[in-house]
């Protein structure tokens, strides 16, 4: 059945979907601050242990199939990894599971780079109690 859904997804893949599958930092920052998106770090546990973000969820990609109930279906699920290759896999899986999902093209390294110095302060103030 899932294979059928995957085939249907590919059949429907068009220029619009090619854009809709991605999200860039400015829009992600806005949607997360407005409570319209959830961020999911899908890196392995060893990677998370080395460093992590102060907001969003952590569900390793290989645990995602068994932890779907932790995701809020009313929100856009933004998947992320250091760059974007694994995030894209996670996003595809979530789409086939009926979620609205987009992958962060700028990656977690993009977030870390974007939120340096006063920009870190300003965004933490903006998201307020949504921080960990």
């Amino acid at each position, binding site marked *: 059945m899932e294979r059928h859904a995957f085939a249907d997804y590919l059949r429907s893949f068009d220029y619009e979907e090619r854009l809709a599958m991605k999200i860039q930092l400015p829009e992600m920052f806005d949607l997360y601050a407005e409570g319209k998106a959830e961020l999911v770090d899908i*890196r392995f546990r*060893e990677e998370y242990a080395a*460093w992590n973000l*102060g907001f969003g969820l952590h569900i390793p990609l290989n645990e995602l199939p068994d932890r779907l109930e932790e995701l809020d279906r009313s929100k856009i699920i933004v998947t992320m990894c*250091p760059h974007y290759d694994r995030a894209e896999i996670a996003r595809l899986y979530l789409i086939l599971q009926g979620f609205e999902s987009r992958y962060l093209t700028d990656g977690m390294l993009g977030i870390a780079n974007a939120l340096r*110095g006063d920009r870190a302060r300003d965004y933490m103030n903006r998201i307020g109690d949504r921080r960990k």
Partner: protein
Amino acid sequence: MNAVEIDELARKAAPAAMGEVRIGLDEFIQAYNEGKCELIDIRMPEETAIWQFNLGLRIPSNELPERLDELPREKLLVIACPMSDRSNMVRSYLAAKGFQAKYLSGGLLGLADRLKGGAAKSLKLRQ
């Protein structure tokens, strides 16, 4: 710090001496795993709140002059910020104070990139 120490630092700022000033990512990871160095994240509290490394000490650069007693004297101090501008500055300060210190070349952004995927296992985290 006094002027003599700063003068001495300036005299050492030659290409051949830069190995004493900075440490590369792989060299840092090896030294950290061997317990020979400590990472000092000198970013502001808001920065460490938004993304943090789960190793080393977090001492914002503007608090450092009052918190020197928290720094281990027996280890190499590896000073880090997102890139390497602030860490280089702080490294100079600590060197002038008599600490063994280098700044992390490549910065925390480089370290985060270096520790992606299976490479994260190359770091042996101490609890």
